[in-house]
């Protein structure tokens, strides 16, 4: 058994990506990974906070690190945005003692203190490097042979680094997919940005980026895309019909969380995986594996 503190993030706990949260918990359990949810965690602040109040963005994130420090375990999150924000705070506080002091001065107003001892990890890192590909392979009950999957990392899981994988040509998700018996297709744009929250403020710009990603996945033969980030999943899935309307394209590509694909291969029941939450239905490509 491996033990971690768990930071689900807003989208995965009670927002648009609840299925990522539930499939994370189900798959972790199957892999003997115990995720202990951080009590009373708050939103990490995400990118928007860094553009409004720089010091505040570190403080909002640091409250979570302070809470995690009480238990002392590595803090794991399945959300790439939470991951980068929490890791960035950790790094900046370590590199600049002056910033650390200021953040702690603010934290004290809320009765918290952070000493900088927590390590922030992304769930993909934990599954790939702590659990390992062999252990993942050993849990496979339904080999996903023949399924062509585009491994979409997005940007924030591998950048700015130094992280657990290459910042522009990572391999860990490819190898997780291969461990399930499926084929990871070539995907040159695997770490290109999906447009992130600018889908809300600058929709046209984000739709252009999403179109490029979908196009790149399809032209490399993918039947579905797998992501490690709730924002990426939302942009590629929920906005796919908008892309089709705007660019007169006919994309119909399911976008799954990597934990959902793992769950299918592990034979975990559909309810925990939330496969029905995708706007583009995934049953078409998964039917040959989910049928009992």
């Amino acid at each position: 058994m491996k033990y971690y503190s768990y930071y689900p993030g807003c989208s995965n706990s009670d927002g648009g990506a609840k299925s990522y949260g539930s499939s994370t918990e189900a798959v972790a359990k199957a892999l003997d990974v115990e995720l202990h949810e951080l009590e009373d965690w708050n939103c990490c602040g995400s990118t928007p906070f860094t553009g409004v109040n720089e010091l505040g963005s570190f403080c909002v994130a640091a409250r979570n690190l302070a809470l995690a420090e009480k238990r002392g375990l590595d803090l794991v999150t399945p959300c790439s945005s939470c991951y980068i924000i929490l890791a960035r705070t950790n790094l900046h506080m370590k590199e600049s003692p002056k910033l650390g002091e200021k953040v702690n001065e603010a934290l004290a107003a809320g009765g918290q203190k952070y000493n900088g001892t927590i390590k922030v990890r992304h769930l993909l890192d934990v599954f790939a490097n702590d659990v390992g590909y062999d252990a993942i392979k050993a849990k496979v009950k339904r080999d996903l042979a023949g399924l062509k999957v585009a491994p979409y990392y997005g940007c924030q899981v591998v950048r700015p680094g130094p992280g657990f994988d290459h910042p522009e040509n990572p391999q860990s998700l490819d190898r997780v997919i291969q461990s399930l018996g499926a084929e990871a297709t070539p995907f040159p744009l695997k770490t290109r940005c999906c447009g992130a929250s600018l889908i809300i403020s600058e929709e046209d710009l984000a739709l252009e980026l999403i179109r490029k990603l979908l196009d790149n996945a399809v032209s490399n033969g993918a039947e579905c895309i797998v992501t490690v980030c709730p924002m990426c999943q939302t942009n590629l899935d929920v906005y796919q019909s908008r892309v089709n309307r705007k660019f007169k394209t006919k994309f119909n590509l399911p976008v799954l969380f990597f934990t959902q694909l793992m769950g299918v291969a592990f034979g975990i029941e559909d309810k925990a995986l939330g496969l029905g939450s995708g706007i583009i239905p995934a049953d078409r490509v998964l039917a040959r594996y989910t049928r009992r």
Partner: protein
Amino acid sequence: MDTKVQSSNKLLEEIYAMPGGEGIRACIQCGTCTGSCPTADKWDFSVRQAIAMARAGNGEELLSSNSMWFCLSCYLCTVRCPRDVKPTELMHAMECVAARHGLSTRRSNTPIMYRAFADAVKNDGRLHELGFMMLFYRRKFFSLLRTNPFSAFKMVSLVGMAPRGIGLYSHGRLGLRGAKIKGNKELKAIIRKSEELGGAL
């Protein structure tokens, strides 16, 4: 190389004092950042130009432009920069400095969106997605009403978004009600204190 900050260049000093802002002095203007940026064609001034302008004391023009606000925080420029300038952090530092001086742009909706997000988080401690979206659209509407009433009323065609909302709801992806965290008061006190302390180190 003389990298001393000119005392007349207040903006540069402010950016330099922000966490992650130190790199601005090390830039050699090679343009790798702009060449890597997935949204470069939308910026009034490119990443490289923005850095040059900040250093030249052209702050007001820069901070009133739509530059920075098109940064997606994808960090591609940051990993490729040969001088470790960390342009992504610089762009966010510039956004915060702009906000501090009341400089803004109407050529991007991102400033309104970011602020709505931050206010939503300040309020509840967690992000309630629907609440945040409503706040953003309300503020965007009133901002347009002041500047361009015609397009504000065109925006009422938000009705066009209804199918997506219903789609999300029917797939169990739209929470109608948010929840506050227990430590909400403490978090608010932390944020208030951070505002008092200010951004500079």
